[in-house]
């Protein structure tokens, strides 16, 4: 099977990113855009654009019927869902199947298996992966019993969740009732599913993930990424490979991710997320993301593949083009997510019109973006403006390059978090590395104290 026309059902930098690879491969692109995005950079690059609804994503990018109708109207062979929106929604995959359109992603069954976090946890146990002590709770009584068994502090997570929404921390059992109620109502409001589960909370932990690629039978890994620098569970700085872990821990994580994907007979590109407990030198399965991820350029930088091309190849029902021993890793890469947020005002969002956009260029620098001078950043969607990626022979070289690259980024007209990164990359703890998931909060609090 050969895909000739792909409908890109997304917006922003990932729509631009997917279109670029399609252009290179000679595949026609149709962009499914909301009314707010019909003049976006991706709309100017795509071969054609279909408007799928008003600005609000609930009535455009999140509508399975509108996306599939656009693909049919444009006579597209396939839909690339990007990340977020409908990218991991089994309903879109099922609607594609009914309409005879290829969904560029895993099977419906696999999306269901990993979309339900408790289900994913059960699969991880079945595949022999370590998970954090915990489990589902339906009532406060059950929560207290489980908490007494696994100990506090405890993290409450939503079964339908992701992206940190509906996640609540209870430091001791007296806080459990309030946290549980809040988590359940947030889970219901965000995902239409009030089910939650508990997991032991590791005070000092890192978030390390393994990129995998499968064709339904064979699975290879493309190494680790460290995504520990987060604010409110939103990743801000990521790097590849994860530094400061022993070779044997790294190998075990690689093998576990491959084992999990093989257990699911996984087809497509995916990421297995792990929590690494710094105090115990142990790792635990968190979840699997069954889509391309924001931070995928890091993996592309260190292993030299184009992951969108690999997704398309697998969607064409080809076998994996690489064996594990074909994959080699070169150097170290770091990514900063440049967001329209004013970090001096508690990360207040900052939509608006851009007067000037200038980025560094040269070897070892990659900028994935959808913004340009004169364009407007709408208030309806997430605040990601650009991803700045630097690649050096080792971590110190990548940080050195990042410092210089950040100094030549210029975005005028709206507030961005660029000044935060300029401060972060000169921070000693960060430069020494590796840092844990609580690092960014400490860094921000220290800055606030010094400023006061």
């Amino acid at each position: 099977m050969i895909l000739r026309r792909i409908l890109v059902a997304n917006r922003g930098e990932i729509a631009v990113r997917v279109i670029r690879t399609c252009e290179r491969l000679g595949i026609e692109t149709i962009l499914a855009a909301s009314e707010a995005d019909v003049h976006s950079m991706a709309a100017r690059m795509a071969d054609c654009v279909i408007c799928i609804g008003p600005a609000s994503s609930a009535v455009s990018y999140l509508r399975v019927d509108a996306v599939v109708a656009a693909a049919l109207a444009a006579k597209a062979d396939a839909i690339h869902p990007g990340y977020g929106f409908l990218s991991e929604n089994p309903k879109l995959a099922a609607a594609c199947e009914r309409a005879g359109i290829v969904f560029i992603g895993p099977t419906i069954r696999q999306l269901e298996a990993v979309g339900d976090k408790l289900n994913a946890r059960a699969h991880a146990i079945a595949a022999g992966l370590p998970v954090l002590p915990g489990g589902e709770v339906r009532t406060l009584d059950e929560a207290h019993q489980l908490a007494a068994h696994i100990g506090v502090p405890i993290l409450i997570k939503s079964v339908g969740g992701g992206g940190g929404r509906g996640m609540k921390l209870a430091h001791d059992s007296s806080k459990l009732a309030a946290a549980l109620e809040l988590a359940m109502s947030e889970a219901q409001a965000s995902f239409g599913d009030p089910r939650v589960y508990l997991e032991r909370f590791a005070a000092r932990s890192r978030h390390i993930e393994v990129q995998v690629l499968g064709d339904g039978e064979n699975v290879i890994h493309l190494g680790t990424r460290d995504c520990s620098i987060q604010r409110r569970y939103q990743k801000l700085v990521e790097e590849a490979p994860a530094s400061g872990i022993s070779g044997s821990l790294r190998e075990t994580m690689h093998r576990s991710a491959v084992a999990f994907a093989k257990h699911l007979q996984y087809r497509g590109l995916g990421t297995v997320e792990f929590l690494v407990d710094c105090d115990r030198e142990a790792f635990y399965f968190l979840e699997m993301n069954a889509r391309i991820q924001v931070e995928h350029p890091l993996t592309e930088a260190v292993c030299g593949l184009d992951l969108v091309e690999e997704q398309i190849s697998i969607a064409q029902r080809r076998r994996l083009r690489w064996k594990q021993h074909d994959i080699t890793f070169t150097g170290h890469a770091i990514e900063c997510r440049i967001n329209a947020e004013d970090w001096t005002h508690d990360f207040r969002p900052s939509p608006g019109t851009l007067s000037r956009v200038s980025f560094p260029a040269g070897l070892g620098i990659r900028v994935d973006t959808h913004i340009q001078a004169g364009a407007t950043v709408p208030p309806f969607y997430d605040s990601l403006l650009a991803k700045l990626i630097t690649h050096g022979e080792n971590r110190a070289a990548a940080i050195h390059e990042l410092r210089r690259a950040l100094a030549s980024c210029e975005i005028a007209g709206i507030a961005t978090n660029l000044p935060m990164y300029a401060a972060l990359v000169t921070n000693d703890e960060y430069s020494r590395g590796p840092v844990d998931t609580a690092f960014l909060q400490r860094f921000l609090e220290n800055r606030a104290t010094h400023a006061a």
Partner: protein
Amino acid sequence: MKLTNEDVQEILQLLDATKCDELHLETRRFKLTLKRDPGSGRWTQETQHLATPNLIHSESAPPAKPAPVSAANSADTPESASLAIRAHLPGTFYRAPRPGAPPFVEVGNRVESGTVVGIIETMKLMNAVHAEACGEIAEICCENARFAEKGTVLMRIKPSAP
């Protein structure tokens, strides 16, 4: 002709060998400016994609959307004694903490300075809207779930002593 990132890298390598410090390239589809910093010798790029989007019409036309409530069409006009609560960010205005929940305030409710009276959703973040004075809610000027431009009057307060 389209411009790829690889093209830019190649152009830079060519330029590196010259004494050129600046390059402007403009076609109907794109505009590219490359500049070399005289001090560091490092390059920056400004790219603009100029092609007009090729919009095709699908059969399922999108439903008409309600016009956003703009700052202009609900400008300060009426009751001299009232104080406006305005949207401090552009975004979708919500009167309740979540769908189905009772609204934060109704007309006639007493509010203190700092009372949360609504939410503005901007870039997927929920931002609380606070009353800036003590008093009574006199009017609610923006419907629930409506998009409001920055500065739109959302509510009016009839001020009174705390």
